């Protein structure tokens, strides 16, 4: 499905990047020069060129990810440097410090991957990583990511709308919510050997939120397969909700009748609600959500309602008291 919900306030894509330029960039990335770039980026990440290339080679979708066409709403904001997006992460499976996921995820070997869709569906599915993705559905989408901790990034994700996957399992009319689970591999994920959170990490969406065309299952970022610290091999991206809703390294999706329990809500219900829509008017009990620091900026900027996706998603919540359903 190609999404064409153009926000009239945003410039058209052709006003932002000349076609010749971005085509040129693609060729540059896929050409021999791309190898050199990969090596430089790999070195910046502290990977040896060998392991960076091995990781890319091991992922059967590497080429498809690199060649995915652009899709989604046009966003003319500066892209966060890749080095920042891969070194400043909340992924408690690898530790609570922002640098831990990059530091401690070297032993995580996501593939082969088994992915289950079950619950209130006509056709439960068990899929390998390659079956999960129909290559022609992959597209690159530039989304804002707003963390509940009042910082934000702009990240080019490569993936497909979650609705495509859910449709394949044929949801029953009894399905009202979608529950997600992260893989449990304490041997490869040192954070899971601690009691930081109640593992597995769990998240959930209302079915209509999960079926919204903006809701993305991502397998890549910055034109490459997802690095371990960003949720390899497949993760959720819900751009109008706080980042912790975008669960990483997903192994299971269950369609359910009742609102499912979610990890941060279980840990602290007062601070982290089920909905957790980005909302500058509803503060986190310990800090204001009115403003945020875009990573790389010095001054904070105003946080936008639904993280700037108000036109697209506000109708999902019409009539709801967003202070109550935070």
């Amino acid at each position, binding site marked *: 499905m190609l999404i064409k919900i153009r926000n009239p306030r945003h410039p058209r894509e052709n006003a932002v990047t000349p076609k010749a330029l971005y085509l040129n960039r693609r060729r540059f990335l896929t050409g021999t020069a791309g190898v050199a770039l990969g090596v430089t980026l790999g070195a910046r990440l502290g990977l040896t060129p060998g392991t960076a290339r091995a990781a890319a080679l091991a992922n059967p979708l590497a080429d498809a990810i690199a060649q995915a066409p652009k899709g989604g709403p046009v966003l003319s904001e500066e892209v966060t440097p890749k080095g920042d997006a891969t070194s400043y992460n909340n992924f*408690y499976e690898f530790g609570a410090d*922002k640098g831990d996921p990059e530091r401690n995820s070297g032993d995580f070997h996501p593939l082969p991957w088994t992915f289950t869709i079950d619950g209130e569906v006509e056709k439960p599915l068990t899929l390998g990583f390659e079956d999960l993705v129909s290559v022609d559905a992959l597209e690159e989408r530039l989304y804002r990511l707003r963390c509940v901790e009042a*910082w934000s990034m702009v990240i080019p994700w490569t993936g497909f709308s979650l609705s495509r996957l859910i449709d394949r399992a044929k949801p029953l009319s009894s399905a009202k919510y979608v529950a997600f689970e992260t893989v449990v591999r304490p041997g490869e994920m040192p954070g899971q050997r601690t009691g930081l*959170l109640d593992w597995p990490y769990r998240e959930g969406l209302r079915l209509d939120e999960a079926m919204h065309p903006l809701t993305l299952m991502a397998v890549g970022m910055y034109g490459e397969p997802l690095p371990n610290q960003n949720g390899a091999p497949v993760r959720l991206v819900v751009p109008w909700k706080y980042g912790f809703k975008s669960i990483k390294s997903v192994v299971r999706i269950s369609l359910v009748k009742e609102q499912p329990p979610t990890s941060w809500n279980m840990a602290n219900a007062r601070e982290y609600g089920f909905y957790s829509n980005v909302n500058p008017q509803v503060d986190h009990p310990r*800090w204001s959500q*009115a403003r945020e620091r875009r990573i790389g900026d010095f001054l904070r900027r105003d946080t936008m309602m639904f993280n700037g996706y108000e036109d697209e998603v506000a109708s999902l919540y019409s009539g709801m008291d967003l202070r109550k359903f935070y």
Partner: protein
Amino acid sequence: MIRFTSSSIDREVLARVGTVLLCGAPLVWQVVLLFSGGLGANPIEALTRNLGEWGLILLLVGLSLSPLRRAFGWTMALRRRRMVGLFAFFYICLHLLSYVGLDQFFHWPTIWADIIKRIYITVGFGAFLLLVPLAVTSTHRWVKRLTYRRWKVLHRLVYPAALLGVVHYWLMVKADITEPVIFAGILAALLGTRLLPKGSLEHWLSNRTTGAGARVSRRSRPLNRPGSA
């Protein structure tokens, strides 16, 4: 005033210089990290946290000097207390300045709302306010002006300030409370030594060590300056 022999003056000077270097090193290191990109993707957050953490560490170091003197007879350590305390206050001021000036860029409405509404910021700001009179009255002239007895009572504010500092740290953590627990444990132990009856720490030590340590401990006691609370 204490009379120093020439060798003890040398040791005093050395100890002072050493204290300044040790206490100043974390700041130098933070500046180096800041300008080399070593503070990561969100340097303002990292700087603010690190400065606060060093303020708390030095506050605890300051609180450990009198138990150290009691247990090991290190008067030299006790004489560093004012400087260590002032350095702690200095780091806490920089921590506050980093939050106000860098993190919020003097956005007073938000800062004021934070102080009133966010309990961990209220607590942290309270700790800072308690430390201000201690820093102001840290000079000899103030000790004289207040009389030593009253000065000593005033400076007991350091205990609630340290307590609020640890609570401030604990409240801001999302899930991993390891570090605040360590700070709280150390603070509890340091405060606990204050509750021990006079002489018990010294007695405990002299029972554990062979004569030498105990003798040093006893000999050093008469050298104490006031302020060994």
